[in-house]
């Protein structure tokens, strides 16, 4: 037994865990250069990401991105202008749409003054404002010919004669169409309406046509009497002159 004990004591026993103090004094302002092993680990564990351009076609990469153009989502001022335009559409009895070729500011001003004198208002609006004003209304077809330089003339009175009189002086303003008493009319129809006289005259003409049958009848019946009367009157005149 003593031999066994001695044998055990002779075997050196090394502990598995050894305490080791860590000298953690670092200079936070001037950090030590990394040990090679640590530097290798740092380099290998550096993050990398997939290129967002990898799945894009050359066209998408080379053309200008459309999503960068910021559209005004809510422009209160534009809403106000659109509302004003809508009111004008509802209140004016005659609205004329023009294409405006290039003209001097002087000419533009003269046109403005000429229309004002005829009690009409010449207005220029952007397509977006017009869209805001007339979308989902009966005036929506206006947007179809609102391409390039467009101008609108609003008149509270449906005075086509005056409108065409003023328009004639400015050849750069090309009449496209009009809205007369809430109805769309083309340029040809405007010309037709221009030839028609005013309401009273038209009514008088209608009355005349209605009465035409009776008037011709009375005329024919009274023709002989009328000729006799006129001849006698002539004779009376002759005799008076002779005296």
């Amino acid at each position, binding site marked *: 037994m003593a031999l066994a004990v001695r044998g055990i004591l002779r075997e050196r026993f090394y502990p598995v865990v050894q305490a080791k103090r*860590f000298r*953690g*004094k*670092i200079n*936070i*302002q001037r*950090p030590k250069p990394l*040990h090679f*092993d*640590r530097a290798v*680990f*740092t380099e*290998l*564990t*550096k*993050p*990398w*990401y*997939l290129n967002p351009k990898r799945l894009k076609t050359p*066209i998408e990469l080379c*053309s*200008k991105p*459309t999503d960068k*153009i910021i559209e*005004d989502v809510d*422009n209160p*001022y*534009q809403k106000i*202008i659109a509302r004003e335009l809508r009111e004008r559409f509802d209140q004016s009895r005659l609205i004329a749409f023009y294409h405006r070729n290039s003209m001097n500011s002087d000419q533009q001003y003269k046109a403005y003054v000429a229309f004002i004198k005829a009690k009409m208002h010449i207005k220029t609006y*952007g*397509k*977006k*404002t017009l869209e805001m004003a007339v979308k989902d209304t009966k005036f929506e077809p206006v947007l179809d010919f609102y391409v390039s330089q467009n101008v609108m003339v609003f008149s509270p009175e449906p005075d086509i004669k005056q409108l065409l009189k003023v328009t004639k002086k400015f050849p750069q303003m090309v009449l496209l169409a009009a809205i007369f008493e809430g109805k769309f009319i083309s340029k040809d129809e405007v010309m037709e309406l221009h030839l028609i006289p005013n309401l009273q005259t038209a009514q008088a003409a209608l009355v005349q046509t209605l009465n035409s049958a009776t008037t011709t009848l009375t005329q024919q019946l009274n023709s002989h009497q009328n000729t006799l009367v006129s001849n006698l009157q002539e004779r009376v005149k002759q005799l008076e002159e002779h005296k």
Partner: protein
Amino acid sequence: MNIQKLVLTKGSSPLFEFSTKLLSVPAVSVLQSCGMKHFPAPPTYDHVEIPERPKLRFVDKVPYYAPGIKAPKMQKKLRLMRGPEPVHNFLIHKQYGIMALGGGRLKWQHFEMMRLAIGRKIDPQRMFAVWRVDSPWQPLTRKGQGQRMGGGKGAIDHYVTPIKAGRIIVEVGGKCEYKEVEGFLRDVAMKLPFQAMAVSQEIMDKEKKEEEWREKNNQNYYTMKYVMQNNLGGCQRWMSPFDFKFLGKYL
């Protein structure tokens, strides 16, 4: 008031799409369009309350001890500068401030520099500034010049405030925009003894989001965290206790 806008429209031929993709150059038409200028309302700062004393208060050079008490000396405690700031890492007033990007110590001279520089630049009527750090409290000792080792711990030379990375040092707020304060905040940040930057709430939110994105979309499976936690390459052999805590992110 109208502004010119360039609206790009892509021309597409729906009938022969396949052939166009192969052969022809896709048409891109450019249509110039005019739009109505939008003047958005300026931001309101009605929710911001300006305190009575808008400027930074004076900080003491030496902390107050009751009379009769000898000023105690302290260990170096470098751990107070190491690692991320867990508590004071957000803006209270949610406006603008200076954030430390590294660890360090603020002396009284730094406090004075900040106080005077910011005090000069802010408009006290509509802006204010507050400290987000304590006045110097940690005593640093120094032995006399040429003294040999031994003879006890040196005498207290000055006091400092230890700062960790991510700490907010000073906050500026009021009825002002970031552009107004960015200039002088950055100047002050450059003068601090550690890396620092001028921040706003937006910047911090953006950075947080980007950090989340980076973590999520990192294609490298073997991050430092993974490597250290799983003892890849036997790295735990040379890792310090701070590495076990900060996993290689902080010094």
